């Protein structure tokens, strides 16, 4: 759904426009939010943050004639909101926010920049390796090892039996390790 389509639906029905935008971008926004909150928030915090993102997006687009692709706009609001949530949750849990924390690195030395570049490159390789597993293994691996879903929950999402998911987790995990090793990445460096 692009901006023109959203504006057109919004004129007809606010409820319908919100529902359609939510349906289309829920998984995308969820991915961004979890990517930022995975280590500081629980499931409820993630859901709160996702709902904050959509409330802001709905509000920002209210009555506005918009054109073009909305994905980047929504991603930007999602990222910014996630970072705000991260800060808030860190305060709540009295998590000390280090000046070295990559999320708050205001001024970076050359060494920091080099390390950050390396980290970004590593992220891309890992994401590529996961994609190379193909479906449904790439989804199973990410749901299991990143979103920390149980085999039963994954089975529900993919319409598979939990036993089949467990078997695929084992095999896909081994394939991922091999793919990373082929690119010279050891598991302990992740």
């Amino acid at each position: 759904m692009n901006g023109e389509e959203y504006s057109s639906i919004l004129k007809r029905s606010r409820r319908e426009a919100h529902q359609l935008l939510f349906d289309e971008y829920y998984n995308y926004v969820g991915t961004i939010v979890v990517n930022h909150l995975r280590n500081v928030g629980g499931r409820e915090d993630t859901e709160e943050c996702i709902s904050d993102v959509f409330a802001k997006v709905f509000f920002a687009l209210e009555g506005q004639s918009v054109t073009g692709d909305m994905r980047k706009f929504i991603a930007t609001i999602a990222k910014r909101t996630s970072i705000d949530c991260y800060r808030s949750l860190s305060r709540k849990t009295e998590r000390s926010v280090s000046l070295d924390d990559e999320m708050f690195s205001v001024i970076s030395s050359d060494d920091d920049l080099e390390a950050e570049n390396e980290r970004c490159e590593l992220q891309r390789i890992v994401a590529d390796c996961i994609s190379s597993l193909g479906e449904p293994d790439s989804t199973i691996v990410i749901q299991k090892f990143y979103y920390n879903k149980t085999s039963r929950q994954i089975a529900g999402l993919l319409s598979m039996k939990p036993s089949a998911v467990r078997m695929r987790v084992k095999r896909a995990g081994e394939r991922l390790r091999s793919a990373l090793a082929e690119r010279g990445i050891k598991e302990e460096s992740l």
Partner: protein
Amino acid sequence: MNKIDLGILDNADEDVIEKLPPFSSDEATRKRVLSMSEKKFDKLMSEQKKVDDSEYEVSVSGVEIYRRPVWHRALGIAAAVALIAGGIGTAAALKHRSPKSGESMFGAQVTDEQTSAVPETSSLAAELPVKAKTPVIDIANDEVRFTAAVYAPYLLDISAEQQSKLAAALDSSEWTPCGEDEPLPEGQTFTMYVYNNGSPYSITLYGDKTVKLEGMGETTRWHIPDSAASAIIEAAVPETEKDGIWDETALLGRMTWCSADSINVSDIWKNTRAGARDCDMTNKDDVFFKMNNAPDYFDRASGTVKIGRLDYYASGCSGDSTKYDFQVDLNTAQAYQYEENYYGPSYEAFISGEGLTDQNVDFIQAQDGENYCSASLSDKTYYKLPGVKHRIDSPTVTLEELRGKNSESGTFDSSASRIQMLSGIAINCIENYRTAFEYLSSFDNWDIVGTEEVNGRVCVHINGAYQAAYDSITSFDLYLDEETGVTVRLKAYDASGRVVYFIETENLKFNGEAEQVKNPDLSGLTGGSEAEPALPKKAS
């Protein structure tokens, strides 16, 4: 196997996130999050409005002619977009800074007039800018309904033509605010309710041609010109008189019953089928949802439904069935049903109506919006009881709600189904919740075969297995009306493939095509509403 730590992916750039298989949730979680989003959005809108109002208090003074009342809308986007579009990989983006004029994520040019400073309201609202206001009291494409003494306790949904005419009259009128001490006149009033995309408001017209504007947390009064007042009255009380007599039939299908305590700006919209949502009838969740909420997909219906059961013996088959001719209007809670009972030798005989033996036990069930009436034509008695249910008593149920006390296991809980509105009228046809639970609650046991035309309706064909130790049924074919979720045909088979239970709906018509609700003819019967008599018994 050992867990693989993928923490390296945290705080990844967009290009990496795009490559990752997306996060996903079950349907219940998605619904909960959307609901939370809508509530937060409403709060943002409400806070934005308070900010707008306080601005007006400062900037407007003295007596001023207003062209018409203005309903404020927050249109904030450009500044927020400009603020956050610069990327947030660095801490600089975490700090608020002023947007550049004309920046827009969507390429749309935004003028300086449309953007202004961010007001300090709540933490959420403060992050988004206030923008120009726009008048949106344009009812041309909105949902509008009226109350007036002449048809109380019903609401009137005006015709598209009347709505267009009224919209034009209001659009061209100039309104001036009333003085603070101007008293409210006594006498007849006409109130117009506007849904306004979930932010409803009302306009009540008084005899002195003033109106009270109510909604979004405030009430104001205005003087309006004669032309606008006449347009409101004309829409509220359409010319339906025939030979000087009020002709209700001209408003058929446009009246909705409404209890006195729900006649207010927001509750008035609960007396409608607001819960209907688009359903993909190739999806099991949607099929189950629509079947459980079939009354949300039509206002009026009529048809004939036959329901029967057959037993098979070594010597042959015997069965009995009931045939109901019905008309219902769910908006007014008026309904009528004529019930006949038969014995028959086969499923085919019951469907064709040939070779049946009349049990000579006929009943009429009817309701008039307030009272329910049941008449036994064989006993020549009837009784009436109050307590008719209306749409407001039977809200839409979501799949999450249908799981009820079984939410942990994810299975469905039949006690969580919606309230039945009609007392025994077309019960397994248009209010088919029991059939839905009995046959479809275990999604593993059935499949959607496709769509077929049955008895003149396009239907979703479902084939499944039936598991109940106490019943001879082992499998079934179910045909649901694709448009409404109403049961058109159910054939339940025993292990030998013989029909042992069936529902067959014929001449099914909806809304404008549906037959008018009949009045029960109680002449020659004895009874009344003084006390509840014993329920009429069928002859054995």
